[in-house]
């Protein structure tokens, strides 16, 4: 069992045109920066990217959008991104907006082997169009399907060579649920340690869900909305 790769280029080597990728992170927080850089470098195209947000013009998935590598984005909020907006308005980019909780729970469903889940989010709105509605105990729910993605790409704080992952603060966000949902899951970590160095009680993503892991480099960890209070 060797899950350890030496860098992002090697870890993503078999991702090809037209694939569907789950990408962890919320805003610019907890993004798999190294893998995104490698995907941009590799130049593959026609990707379907499932990620809560689409980055900004010059960071995160925005970098892939700029290279026109993305055919379709599935997100809950696409934020401030001029290139994104241009491609969307020109019809170059297809966008499917889905509620954030639905996005998370469709990942959970995939990771937990549940083909579909029920959520009230979107009942009575355009999100419900074409979907099965079902009433339980007097309340309507939409049936939403588990994601079916080729790769999940996530960022953790620490990981061991068996693929066990630990996240830090709100950089956890979508990473654990996406890590569970990929057919192949690639994790980049700030610190890669030996088995036994992580406390078994404190592992957020058990290694069984992680197929490849590498120590990332040069994390920028950009802040999208730096907000402070006076001292």
């Amino acid at each position, binding site marked *: 069992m060797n899950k350890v790769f030496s860098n992002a280029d090697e870890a993503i080597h078999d991702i090809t045109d037209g694939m569907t990728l789950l990408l962890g992170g919320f805003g610019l927080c907890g993004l798999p920066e190294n893998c995104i850089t490698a995907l941009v470098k590799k130049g593959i195209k026609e990707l379907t990217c499932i990620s809560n947000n689409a980055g900004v013009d010059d960071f995160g998935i925005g970098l892939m959008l700029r290279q026109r590598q993305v055919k379709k984005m599935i997100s809950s909020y696409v934020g401030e991104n001029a290139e994104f907006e241009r491609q969307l308005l020109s019809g170059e980019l297809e966008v499917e*907006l889905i509620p954030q909780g639905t996005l998370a729970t469709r990942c959970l469903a995939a990771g937990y082997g549940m083909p579909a889940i029920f959520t009230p989010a979107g009942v009575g709105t355009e999100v419900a169009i074409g979907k099965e509605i079902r009433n339980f105990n007097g309340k309507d729910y939409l049936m939403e399907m588990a994601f079916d993605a080729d790769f999940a790409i996530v960022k953790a704080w620490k990981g061991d060579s068996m693929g066990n992952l630990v996240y830090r603060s*709100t950089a956890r966000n979508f990473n654990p649920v996406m890590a569970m949902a990929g057919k192949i899951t690639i994790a980049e970590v700030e610190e890669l340690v030996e088995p036994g160095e992580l406390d078994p009680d404190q592992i957020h993503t058990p290694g069984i869900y992680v197929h490849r892991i590498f120590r990332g480099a040069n994390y920028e960890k950009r802040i999208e909305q730096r907000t402070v209070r006076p001292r």
Partner: protein
Amino acid sequence: MLDKTGIAKRIAREIKDGYYVNLGIGIPTLVANYIPDNIDVVLQSENGLLGMGPFPFEGEEDADVINAGKQTITMLPGSAIFDSAMSFGMIRARKVNLTILGAMEVSENGDIANWKIPGKMVKGMGGAMDLVASAENIIVAMQHVNKAGESKLLPQCSLPLTGIHCVRKIVTELAVLDVLPGGGFKLLERAPGVSVEEIKNATAGKLIIEGEIPEMDLS
């Protein structure tokens, strides 16, 4: 008439000891500043945090610690971090006692529109659809009329909906209103210096006025 701070102050009075509260972006975020000191309230940020604290002091920002508006924040003692599935799990399971969010329109049967304007760039609903579909107690913080002077309290929403039959209370610069289960905006309080007549004129949906309408107590 209230300014944004006044709206936030008035909403803060709806928060009870022990509440877990989710605050949306905009005026709702300001509410945190006016929660009385003598009650314990835990703020939920739907990106995966319970126990959100104030913004950090300059130089103490941590890129890994943000709120749902992507702002740098701090965590209070007793905070807990969790993933997005659990975050919306606890929202759907109605463990969050109160959700406060903004709106473009609210209808007299409690429908809310706050995510999309046809013809404009659509940024997405984020977690709003999940929150309004699940919360048992939703307060909308908004202006009573839009910039064109048109009422945002309508017989029915004209914009694409975020959720249906979900808004329970509305606080605007003019008034506090309940949305009645059977439909209709029930006027509860007037903002300081605002007359019932002004509220009537600014409300397009069915307005229910019973008895004397007191002025808000913001002391």
